[in-house]
């Protein structure tokens, strides 16, 4: 059986392709409105805070806090079934965006991970890098 790999994003999707392009140079980016300061995430072409928005790309330091998480113990997905148990989490980046990712290096935490500090760790693929996280 051929190696099954992690499902990867569609790099041509119109709203998010710039986010994924930035990952190739190890940059975790998000948008902020120059008009009203709203942080927009996931990426879009319009500001959700004001109608005259001018969105600018910013680069995150790649550090944040686990807002909430779960340990996935059952998956029928051909890739993820080989990964169980693994941690999925909503992560609040210090600049404001909240994103879904995995927390590496821990599969069955004894204590809650909520509030724990994390830092991005890139998983490099041929045409894109995936922002995963590790406890700091």
């Amino acid at each position: 059986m051929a190696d099954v790999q992690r499902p990867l994003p569609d790099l041509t999707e119109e709203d998010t392709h710039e986010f994924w392009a930035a990952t190739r140079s190890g940059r975790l980016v998000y948008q902020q409105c120059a008009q009203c300061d709203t942080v927009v995430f996931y990426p879009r072409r319009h500001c959700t805070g004001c109608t005259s928005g001018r969105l600018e790309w910013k680069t995150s330091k790649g550090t944040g806090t686990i807002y909430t998480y779960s340990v996935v113990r059952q998956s029928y997905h051909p890739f993820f079934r080989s990964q169980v148990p693994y941690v999925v989490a909503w992560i609040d980046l210090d600049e404001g965006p909240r994103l879904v990712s995995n927390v590496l290096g821990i599969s069955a935490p004894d204590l809650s991970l909520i509030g724990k500090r994390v830092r991005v760790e890139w998983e490099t693929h041929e045409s894109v890098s995936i922002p995963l996280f590790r406890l700091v």
Partner: protein
Amino acid sequence: MATQVRDAAIVGIHEYPSRDVEGRVSPLQIKAESAARALEDAGLKWSDVDAIYDAGEGGGAMSGLTIAEYFGIRPNVIDTTAVGGSSYEYHAAHAKRDIAAGKARVALLTYGSTAHSAAQRIGVGGRSGSRHPADNMEVFSGLTLVANYAMVANRHMHQYGTTSAQLAEIPVATRYHAMRNPEAVKAMQDLEFLNIRETTVDDVLNSRLIADPLRLLECCMISDGGGAVVITNPAIARDCRKPPVWILGTGEATRYPENGGDVTCTAAAQSGPLAFGEAGITPAEIDVAMIYDSFSITVLTILEDLGFCPKGEGGRWVEGGRLRFDRMDGPALNTDGGGLSSNHPGMRGIFLLIEAARQLRGESCSQVMDAKLAVAHGNGGMLGSRHCAGTIILGRD
């Protein structure tokens, strides 16, 4: 109560009895069969129907057209609102509005699914490829549907001290009701449940983890099934076979991830006050709470957000079997057995309306004595990220 308007009523209901059709019946056939039985229940005919509400699960992108032809009726009103499991609460809300506006006389809501026969791995399967930007940001993470809800539970525990034992009260209550419902018992047999009996909190805590902190007995089944609901105006309702179940109030809302948002707060916090406000009643007056029980945490957060108890106190509030039909401090929760133990073919919202109507007619297997008021609250999508909520308040004469 002076402002309460009784301009539309549920007069016909049917729940398709089988949860395992073994691939021999299609979703469309389940919809049509259920529609015919619900119309008979009301004492009405296909030709009486002039408004169709359809979530598109059987007929594809043009379901408003294809379902009309399939049924063989020519409706004046077509509504194809598709918001997952909450679609049918939206449909009931829209039917009430359309009937009150004089645009519709007899509204037909139907649902059919063969999720079990088709072996759909709804809860723990992979996510299909999608070009929606939100999916494109999450597809790499292996976030299963169960884990999505589990993240709400973990945050609720962190924020409010809720325990797994408290969450377990919810599947224990729904199983208690399921064991009194022969169709639910048959469903559990057909879907090869182990140990089909009343459960305890310890049973739930001893079942295996699917996505921490949610365990097997906190997750709904995946069945085949469907049903139908007929809604009409007061003049026609008076001539129907069964007593009318009035739609007293409706509310609709969405909720999606926001930077800094509170994932323990569901769209019910917005739809609930709209529905209760329109009905002119409070949660304390509700006898029967039909709450979308995809998972234990879904019910706990929605009970709080509808105002049955203060936010964060749901865990303590449900302790001690409060949600059982034979308790006086109720409300009774999901007296058909719910999605956890009776019927969940993917979009359960129609069964919330059906069992609420049974209760207000006095026809439930776990009948609440002298039930007068019920709430049906559907949740569609995913609780921990983007979801829709529909709240319907129902009352008898």
